[in-house]
């Protein structure tokens, strides 16, 4: 069974602060993804990565950075958090041995005050 974990599971941040969301996968998948989920929008792709050292912009990258230091880890960074970034964030992995199915983590609830 594919395993994707996220930390923290819940986060409260202040406007203008820096937030880092972490994701770890133990499946040896090449690809990893960050999405946000908002009511009325489904999931939207923020950044993704094809492997260690690579990051690509998704559909809504503004205000976010990503880092893929290793095969297992993929971080999403909000340098200057804003209330509009309050959302639920999901990490996923796929590709390589995972084929074309994406496996999702449990999500991180972020509240920016």
């Amino acid at each position, binding site marked *: 069974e594919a395993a994707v974990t996220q930390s923290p599971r819940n986060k409260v941040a202040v406007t203008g602060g820096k937030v880092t969301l972490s994701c770890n996968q133990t499946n040896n998948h090449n690809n990893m993804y960050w999405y946000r989920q908002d009511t009325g929008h*489904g*999931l939207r792709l923020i950044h993704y990565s094809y492997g260690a050292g690579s990051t690509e912009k998704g559909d809504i990258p503004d205000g976010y950075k990503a880092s893929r230091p290793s095969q297992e880890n993929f971080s999403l960074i909000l340098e200057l958090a804003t209330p509009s970034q309050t959302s639920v964030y999901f990490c996923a992995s796929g*590709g390589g041995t995972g084929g074309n199915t*994406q496996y999702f983590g449990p999500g991180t609830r972020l509240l920016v005050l």
Partner: protein
Amino acid sequence: AQSVTQPDARVTVSEGASLQLRCKYSYSGTPYLFWYVQYPRQGLQLLLKYYSGDPVVQGVNGFEAEFSKSNSSFHLRKASVHWSDSAVYFCVLSFNSAGNKLTFGIGTRVLVRP
């Protein structure tokens, strides 16, 4: 650009009844289609996927979906629902076989009444 439409935001059914969730997609090329389910406070899990061949695909937990190219649809069905099927269901489109970039519908929330 590709898009996915799930016209029903909420569906309520009684336990034991049948369920159909509608999905329409817009994409000029060959679509790769998925249904994912999200249980409360959890991540998304794959129910089934379609790439080619038999337009009716079977998934987990008794779910199946039917692809129609002429109608640009990929509807999900289950013959008899259980209370544990209460969840949010997402229809998802990919435009490459690697599934690297997914386009999600907004989801249909299903409530199964005892």
